[in-house]
């Protein structure tokens, strides 16, 4: 028994030895297999786990305005993303996360149910929100940190700045144009890490520092930009236009002080807006300029000696020449008028003759090109439009007669602004400048860009003469509403027809080009209100006041003092007929009555077209003057109920009133807090509803 058991034990030991040996052999074979056949792969994997390189992302350059106010900046912020397959209960997760991320639960649920590996739920999350999301510890929901682009002023200058995408790459506007300057160079950190991903102290480390992107300093002034955007919005909504553009330029340097398009978008949430709103139409789009182009025709006529300020013209009302007809916009015409009066009256036949006959197509073409039309000005912005200038015909033609008053030619708002700036500064065409400096994060200037002259287009004397004519347009002509007491505004109105599919449509583009102060211009502006639905859709009615309001605030901000003109002494019992062109009917009548004049009416309308005798004429006190209205169609005798617009944004309030056939007059900014007439009142369609706006939750002052 004892012997048996001893043998059994020995056998068991032997068996165990064999088993262990076999096992060891197998392990050795496995080890050899792994080492010899797959050693390199596993070595790589082990190294990758221990030394996985982490990219060191550079800081994207900041974009500043001309006063070093940041308009676009990058900070390292957190973003929430989901791995849909790991989300256990999408419905519950969506409902828990939606209030934290301030997004719609249904939208969130649709994201969580997508069949993708990862999906972004919210970018640019503030630290409190990130903490709240972390605290929930929802399965499949993660937070990552990454440098992200912020635009602290929201929509301000959005069409100029453009935006950077999720991966911090410039996609639109200046962000795209200066991508190579702003983005910097990525670095890398290789550091030994343990299994949990933590850095091992005294472990191996290799670091390649990133190079931060360079900062850009713009010529844009954020205060003027804000004024421009606010007034442009008001102008678009009041005129019931579909779109508006404003370009403000410093005529002495070619610096772009402001450039705005309305409606615009918020670059912080660019994907919430349709792509057509991302465009900077002031640079990329081209339009028929209409009567504002008469400043080019008129100044060239003076330059080549085809006209003087004292030249006289007789308005033929209907000019049948060059195989076609050019009509004066005013029924009955303007009679005999001087060069300046023709500009004040914006008389088409006069400028048609000036272009086709007196200057001549070939010569006029050269000057038009010299003003920068028909080619790129070289602004540092993507997608600059060239405009369209017809080739000159050997003989005077209807096409070139039309060019004289701004038809049959296409220009970009930027080209128009730079051309007017050339007149304002004494005849020098500057290259538009949007970026003033490129500098490092430490403030060292890498590149300073000086103003660049393209060419001298007009002589200083011609420019000075023409400026006086443009001043007269505002003082005595159609640009009344652009005038600002003490700031001597000079300009020209335009009401351009809009061509679509080969013919002009019923809607117009109300425009104004001008500058101030006329004797020492500090700011040039171009206003375009596209497809104005309100009637009358004149530039002097809608675009000129936008310009006036912008210029008044901008010049005050720039510290330019007002200088009041001393009126000519008028003999006793005599009065000067005030300029009431394009004013609302009631205001025009008030001004005439205040001057001691009696008023007779011709036509019907809500805005004064003209007064006879013309403004500036000295007459006896008590004289009856004829107040002429545009031939507006009498509105349908419909009575509408005034809708309640309180609590609505400017845009929504304007649309709500427009739907009822009512007009809006805007006071203040923010949301609508009160209105007159009150909601529910019955009023004729076409009436003006005055709406007071202020910030939400507060009463109007």
């Amino acid at each position: 028994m004892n012997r048996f058991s001893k043998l059994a034990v020995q056998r068991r030991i032997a068996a165990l030895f064999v088993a262990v040996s076999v096992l060891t052999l197998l392990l050795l074979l496995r080890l050899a297999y792994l080492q010899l056949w797959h050693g390199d792969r596993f070595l790589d994997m082990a190294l990758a786990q221990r030394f996985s390189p982490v990219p060191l992302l550079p800081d994207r350059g900041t974009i500043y305005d001309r006063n070093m106010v940041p308009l676009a900046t990058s900070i390292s912020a957190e973003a929430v993303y989901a791995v849909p397959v790991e989300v256990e209960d999408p419905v519950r997760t969506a409902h828990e996360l939606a209030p934290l991320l301030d997004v719609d639960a249904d939208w969130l649920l649709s994201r969580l149910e997508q069949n993708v590996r990862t999906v972004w739920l919210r970018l640019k999350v503030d630290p409190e929100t990130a903490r709240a999301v972390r605290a929930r510890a929802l399965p499949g929901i993660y937070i990552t940190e990454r440098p992200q682009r912020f635009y602290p002023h929201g929509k301000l200058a959005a069409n100029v700045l453009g935006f950077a995408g999720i991966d911090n790459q410039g996609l639109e506007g200046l962000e795209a144009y200066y991508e190579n300057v702003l983005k910097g160079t990525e670095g890398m950190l290789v550091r030994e890490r343990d299994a949990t991903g933590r850095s091992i102290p005294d472990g191996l480390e290799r670091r390649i520092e990133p190079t931060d992107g360079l900062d850009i300093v713009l010529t844009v002034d954020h205060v003027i930009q804000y004024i421009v955007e606010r007034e442009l919005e008001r102008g678009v909504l009041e005129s019931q236009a579909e779109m508006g553009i404003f370009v403000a330029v410093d005529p002495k340097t070619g610096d772009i002080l402001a450039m705005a398009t309305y409606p615009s978008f918020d670059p912080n949430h660019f994907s919430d807006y349709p792509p057509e709103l991302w465009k900077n139409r002031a640079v990329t789009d081209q339009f028929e300029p209409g009567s504002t182009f008469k400043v080019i025709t008129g100044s060239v006529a003076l330059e080549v000696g085809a006209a003087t300020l004292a030249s006289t013209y007789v308005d033929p009302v209907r000019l049948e020449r060059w195989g076609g007809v050019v009509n004066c916009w005013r029924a009955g015409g303007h009679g005999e008028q001087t060069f300046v009066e023709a500009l004040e009256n914006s008389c088409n036949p006069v400028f048609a003759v000036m272009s086709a006959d007196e200057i001549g197509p070939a010569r006029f073409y050269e000057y038009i090109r010299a003003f920068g039309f028909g080619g790129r000005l070289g602004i540092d912005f993507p997608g600059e439009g060239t405009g369209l200038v017809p080739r000159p015909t050997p003989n005077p033609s209807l096409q070139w007669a039309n060019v004289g008053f701004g038809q049959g030619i296409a220009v970009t708002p930027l080209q128009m602004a730079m051309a007017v700036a050339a007149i304002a500064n004494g005849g020098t065409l500057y290259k538009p400048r949007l970026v003033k400096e490129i500098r490092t994060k430490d403030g060292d200037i890498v590149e300073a860009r000086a103003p660049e002259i393209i060419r001298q287009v007009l002589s200083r004397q011609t420019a000075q003469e023409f400026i006086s004519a443009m001043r007269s347009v505002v003082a005595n002509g159609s640009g009344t509403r652009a005038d600002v007491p003490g700031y001597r505004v000079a300009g020209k109105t335009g009401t351009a027809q809009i061509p679509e599919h080969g013919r002009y449509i019923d809607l117009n583009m109300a425009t104004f080009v001008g500058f101030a102060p006329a004797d020492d211009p500090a700011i040039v502006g171009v206003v375009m209100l596209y497809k104005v639905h309100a009637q009358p859709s004149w530039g002097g009615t809608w675009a000129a006041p936008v310009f006036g309001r912008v210029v008044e605030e901008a010049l005050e901000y720039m510290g330019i003092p007002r200088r009041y003109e001393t009126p000519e002494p008028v003999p006793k019992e005599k009065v000067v007929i005030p300029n009431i062109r394009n004013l609302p009917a009631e205001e025009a009548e008030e001004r005439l009555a205040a001057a001691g004049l009696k008023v007779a009416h011709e036509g019907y309308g809500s805005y004064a077209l003209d007064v006879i005798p013309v403004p500036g004429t000295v007459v006896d006190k008590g004289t009856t003057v004829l107040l002429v209205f545009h031939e507006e169609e009498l509105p349908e005798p419909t009575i509408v109920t005034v809708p309640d617009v309180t609590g609505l944004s400017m845009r929504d309030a304007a649309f709500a009133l427009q739907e009822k056939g009512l007009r809006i007059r805007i006071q203040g900014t923010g949301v609508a807090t009160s209105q007159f007439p009150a909601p529910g009142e019955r009023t004729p369609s076409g009436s003006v509803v005055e709406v007071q706006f202020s910030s939400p939750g507060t009463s109007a002052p």
Partner: protein
Amino acid sequence: MIMSNRTSQKTHSVVAPHVGTGRVRRKQRRVHEALLMAGCAVALLALALVYVGQRTYIMTLAYKADALNQSVADALREREFLQLRIAQAHSLAHVEQVATGKLGMVRPEATQYVVLDETARIASSEPATPAPEKPRGFIAIAVDWVAQHWPRLETAEAGGERR
């Protein structure tokens, strides 16, 4: 010889204890060696433990430092975010909204102020050789003063007519 025997006996008698002592010494040496080895081993172990302990401590400190660095990074990020909030609060749209809505401020009217040059007016109105003044009543002086100043005061009032 006897001496020698004695000597040898003596020697024997001496040798025997000597041999015993040697064993003891060897034993003692071995013990000493063992003790030394043990001591060395203990010392080595202690050193190893100290080293491991130090390494562990350093590692713990390093991890703490890493965590603190992360906190610093978080704080810096939060500071950046707050700076962004400040920039957003400085945006003119926000400032105007607060000014008009919260503080009840209104846009200023374009008021024309006329600065009255009092010294020039007085100098021009003073006669070259002042005539002796007749004594006048208070009402007459007040009427004169109002007649002189009223139009100017009217022009200088805030909210005067725009030109």
